[in-house]
């Protein structure tokens, strides 16, 4: 399968292997020499590398140094949310804490790399047919579940089928809708038949929810993963110890404890006080606190996590394009990134695609700037002088974005009222229902899936009800397009359509901001989710 990331377009994401030998050795030395990572970062900043890159560099560096990881030790991770609905049943995974537990206990068929390419995990190889409408997966042999039963094709078929069928309650049911059926070829080979051609299938098999459970079980915590489940109390914590007969080299840590601290301030304090070693969802207001502390690092991974305001196109006032324009022009994007996200983010152009998507990002599309006069003009043209925006703190920074917009609207005499509602019940009662609401989306591994899920005509979660036939055609076509140039053209056209036509107002992408103890090494940085998309349990070690 094709490598989607070519070096030139990852210009700002310098890779460890591109370093000169001397730099290499500097990094190695510093890392081994137990310098605090802040020293290293400072050092590199001096050499004019952006902090983002520098950190990235550092992590890739560590991965390169995975040659000499230390065994032993234990870490405690504190997620941002947990509750009685905590799960060990992959199809029902909805929160970071579920994902990380799944990552520790189970394996997927496919695994993501830092650069968003994929590699086989339980599947040794994944081969598409000519039009990528049928895929053959060769499964790893000699893999056993924690209870000793060997892993076979049946487990795969069973696990994957749970995402299909009418009575399936899988969270990703509709994402995997393109899969028609799973066929068992032999004990260690399966076929996946699609109802359309899809060259991105592997990425779908690497979702948090597509973990392989033992045939016939529903998430009792018995998987093939790097850690064995010792104890699990929903809403409290789970403890996992290393799986000694793991099918590959295996985890370095002896023990991991996974819990959550829901109060953001308390979470950061716990990290600095050393009570936990990994936290996700660091609020911008706490960046400085972490950066100033010696024993911890802020791990900020650039990603396409959009802070979006959905204006429904099928209702007042969204039907009116000028209104949407007004709302888009009043976004002070630079300020959002600089002030609200404290620089840990990137300006967005009212499209869901960011530079993190690599070549599919349309850099040609002119950036929409903060322009109160244009906004005023459009608002007046639209005939609206006030509107009500439903806000829930679904992503850190979103509320502040709205506050800033409100303040700026006020300055041009437009009354943007904020209606704050609780997060619980938001997705059911507000999102896609109230005429103006906020949204955030985890980054999808490909630009196509990112746009398909949100802007595909008639798509399940087309959250601005903007249905554009051309969009649908392109989304389908791009999947079978091989030529990079043409493909990029299509991508650009789609982003332009969204940029001009849709009801989405996306002022910025926020980085994924996590805090980790300084002595944690080998931290993966897959930008698909918090803490390297939770790939860490198997790979990190303590220096």
């Amino acid at each position: 399968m094709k490598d989607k990331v070519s070096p030139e377009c990852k210009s700002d994401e310098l890779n460890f292997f591109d370093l000169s030998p001397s730099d290499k050795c500097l990094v190695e030395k510093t890392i081994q020499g137990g310098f605090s990572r802040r020293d290293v970062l400072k050092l590199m900043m001096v050499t004019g590398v952006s902090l983002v890159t520098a950190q990235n560099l550092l992590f890739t560096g560590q991965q390169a140094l995975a040659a000499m990881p230390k065994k032993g030790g234990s870490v405690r991770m504190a997620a941002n949310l947990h509750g009685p609905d905590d799960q060990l049943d992959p199809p029902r995974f909805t929160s970071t804490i579920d994902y990380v537990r799944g990552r520790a206990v189970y394996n997927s068929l496919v695994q993501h790399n830092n650069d968003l390419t994929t590699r086989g995990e339980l599947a040794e190889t994944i081969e598409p047919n000519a039009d990528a409408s049928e895929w053959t997966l060769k499964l790893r042999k000699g893999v056993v579940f924690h209870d000793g039963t060997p892993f076979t094709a049946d487990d795969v078929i069973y696990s994957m089928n749970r995402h299909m069928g009418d009575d399936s309650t899988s969270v990703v049911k509709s994402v995997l809708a393109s899969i028609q059926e799973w066929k068992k070829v032999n004990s260690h080979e399966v076929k996946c038949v699609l109802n359309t051609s899809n060259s991105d299938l592997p990425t779908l098999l690497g979702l948090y929810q597509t973990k392989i459970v033992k045939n016939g079980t529903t998430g009792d915590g018995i998987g093939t993963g790097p850690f064995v489940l010792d104890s699990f109390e929903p809403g409290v914590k789970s403890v996992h110890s290393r799986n000694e007969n793991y099918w590959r080299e295996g985890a370095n840590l002896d023990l991991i404890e996974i819990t959550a601290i829901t109060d953001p301030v308390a979470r950061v304090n716990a990290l600095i006080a050393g009570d936990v070693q990994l936290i996700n969802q660091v609020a911008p207001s706490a960046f400085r606190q972490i950066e100033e502390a010696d024993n911890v690092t802020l791990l900020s991974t650039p990603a396409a996590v959009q802070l979006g305001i959905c204006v429904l196109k099928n209702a007042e006032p969204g039907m009116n394009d000028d209104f949407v324009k007004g709302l888009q022009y009043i976004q002070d994007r630079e300020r959002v990134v600089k002030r609200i996200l404290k620089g840990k983010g990137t300006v967005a152009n009212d499209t869901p695609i960011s530079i993190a998507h690599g070549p599919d990002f349309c850099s040609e599309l002119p950036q929409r700037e903060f322009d109160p006069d244009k906004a005023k003009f459009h608002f007046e043209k639209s005939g609206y002088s006030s509107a009500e925006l439903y806000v829930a703190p679904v992503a850190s920074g979103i509320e502040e974005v709205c506050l800033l917009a409100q303040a700026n609207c006020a300055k041009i005499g437009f009354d943007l009222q904020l209606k704050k509602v609780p997060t619980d019940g938001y997705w059911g009662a507000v999102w896609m229902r109230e005429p103006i609401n906020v949204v955030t989306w985890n980054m999808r591994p490909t630009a196509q899936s990112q746009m398909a899920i949100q802007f595909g005509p008639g798509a399940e979660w087309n959250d601005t009800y903007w249905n554009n036939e051309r969009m649908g055609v392109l989304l389908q076509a791009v999947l079978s397009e091989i030529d990079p140039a043409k493909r990029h053209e299509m991508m650009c056209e789609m982003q332009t359509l969204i940029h001009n036509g849709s009801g989405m107002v996306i002022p910025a992408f926020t980085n994924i901001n996590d805090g980790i103890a300084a002595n944690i090494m080998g931290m993966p940085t897959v930008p698909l989710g918090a803490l390297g998309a939770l790939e860490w349990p198997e790979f990190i070690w303590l220096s």
Partner: protein
Amino acid sequence: MNEPEKQNVEAGQEVLDKLDKFDELPDAPPKRKLKLSWTGKIATMIVVFWMVIAIIGPFIAPFHEMDMDGDDSFLNAHSNEYGTFYLGTDYLGRDTFSRVIWGARMTIGISLAATFLAYVIGITLGIAAAVKGGWVDMAVSRVNDAILALPSIMLGLIAIAAFGSSIPILVIIAGIIYASSVFRIARALGLDIMVQDFVEAAKVRGEGLWWIIKSEVLPNAAMPLATDFGLRLVFVVLFISSLSFLGLGVQPPQADWGSMVRENLAGLTYNSWAAVWPAFAIASFTIAINLIVDDISAKSGGSLAKKMV
């Protein structure tokens, strides 16, 4: 009779005259007016100050509560082209000073309104339960117990999730929740006032229930109930702020002291005072109120206790 006795009699005579005019000494000195101790006076000044701020605040505040004009968040006092930030900026670079001033209206407004509501509801039901008794008392008391037994934060959470968190809703919720404790007191008071002779006298006269409540019971229950007012008020302020802890409470960007403390907690680590000022405001206001109440309901027990050796 001899001289001294005569004088005696004369002396006695004027006493007699006095007596014929029913010159009996009152059992108690004439009704005492409200006298405030020095703490009480200071407290009153503080409360008045905040009241004034609450009214004129928005007009004197250098910034609007939603302006993010500070150079950066969690800065200490500085000034820039927009103006001077006397107390520094909050987590969004808004002027803490202005927001404290704006917050006065919100906080004091909501808490007073809610507390009054609580008293209206609590007293009405409490007295009703005490006077009517029987199943009315039973029913109201049980519901009351239920509200007391359930954590107030949860009740608030549910109500807000259900009805949204507009200011009227907040007032109503807080009012209902804290009515339950007022109810307890009002009912107890009602019970022992109802057995007083003067109430019985009214009954013998054939007075209606409503008249008895309004002119016999309520006037006598007023003072004891007032003594509890201060604490209630504090609890309401804290309740609103604890809602803001769960991400509810008043609507942004409106400033209320409790939420301001909450929002800016992170700043404490950069020794930013953005969270301290509103906390101080809450404390000063509520303490002042309580000092006044303590003064009004000064326990004469104190005076007797002072005679202990």
